[in-house]
């Protein structure tokens, strides 16, 4: 009996990641970071820009997401997102570009509070990767 559960990350184009041997996942849920272990109660939540940390026997992996929905049920964690990147694969100039865009976004005059919050969040996360 392990302490493992199944993680599946899908984006609209394909199944991005599927792992059977995950021990812990930390997700940037909308109301704060949340760690999920085996036998968590069923939960649905959605994500804000941040880092998903996946712990498994093979080590730790980090992914950058901008939005998404998570569902946990019967030791199956599904993450649905349209924007996910493995931090290992992001190039420095890509981060800079995204940072620049987020800054443009947050400095617009007509942003509403939620959008502003989200793009501020994005900037913070991107800076932390950098």
């Amino acid at each position, binding site marked *: 009996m392990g302490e493992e559960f199944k993680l599946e990350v899908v984006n609209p*184009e394909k199944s991005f990641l599927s792992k059977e041997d995950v021990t812990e996942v930390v997700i940037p849920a909308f109301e704060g970071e949340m760690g999920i272990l085996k036998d968590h109660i069923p939960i*649905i939540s959605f994500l804000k820009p941040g880092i998903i940390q996946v712990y498994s026997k093979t080590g730790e992996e980090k992914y950058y997401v901008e939005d998404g929905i998570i569902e946990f049920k019967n030791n199956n964690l599904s993450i649905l997102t349209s924007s996910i990147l493995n931090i290992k694969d992001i190039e420095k100039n890509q981060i800079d570009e995204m940072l620049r865009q987020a800054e443009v976004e947050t400095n617009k005059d007509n942003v509403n509070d939620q959008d502003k919050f989200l793009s501020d969040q994005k900037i913070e996360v991107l800076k932390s990767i950098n």
Partner: protein
Amino acid sequence: MASLDDLKKRIVSVKSTQKITKAMKMVAAAKLKRAQDSAEKGRPYSEKMNNIILNLSEGISDKENAPKLLSGTGKDQIHLCVVMTSDRGLCGGFNSNIIKKAKSYFSKLSSQSKELKIMTVGSKGNDQLKRVFGNKIIENISFKNSKNANFFDAEKVSKIIIEKFQKEEFDICTIFFNQFKNVITQIPQAQQIIPLKTQTDDKEKSEDNYEFEPDEDEILTNLLPKNISTQIFKAMLENSASEQGARMSAMDNATRNAGEMVDKLTIEYNRSRQAAITKELIEIISGAESL
């Protein structure tokens, strides 16, 4: 009767047409494989999304105040029809099947004296609809430049739809697309996306009590626009697979027809060549006899 030269020219031109249709068929077959792959890969996302929405809408406490995207505006006077077609022709009945389906829906609406608004995605549908329904078309989008169906395009479409919904420009939104069954069969579909119809005949009704964070309403408000993008993206994927399938079988038929035509023309050419030779021989022989 056509002269030998004319026949020869026709054979050559039919042969070169055959070459083109054959090439198009092969290109379509290669693209079909890709489109089918991405349609299959995209399925888990939309299925999961559907599941979550289903669970959420069951769990929602206050049905009266549910988000409008789920429950509708309470009226059904103005219909928005999103007709999704291809940007290119030469794909058999692909586009006209969608248009036919849409038109019969339109006439049903007008017999019930509902108001109709049309949005076309893909230029072929716009071309066919603007003759009759030109004044009803309020928006026309085409993604000629993007090679494959991608999610950003779908999001663009859904953004326009949601914006119009929030301005209360319509009450009910239906999308028209071709569902891919196999290479020969594509089924034109009409699917209502606003307000959302949840299928209650789901076999595994979950009895799990989910924890929601933040609460259901807030999640739903965030999720429903995403679901619309997802549905549209799914329709786009199905459509592109169907388009390639339809094109492949259409081009296959065309190639075969061209082959038959070449055979027929060749026989005719040989016959008239032989007739000409026989005629010349007879002339020479009768000429010699009269001496």
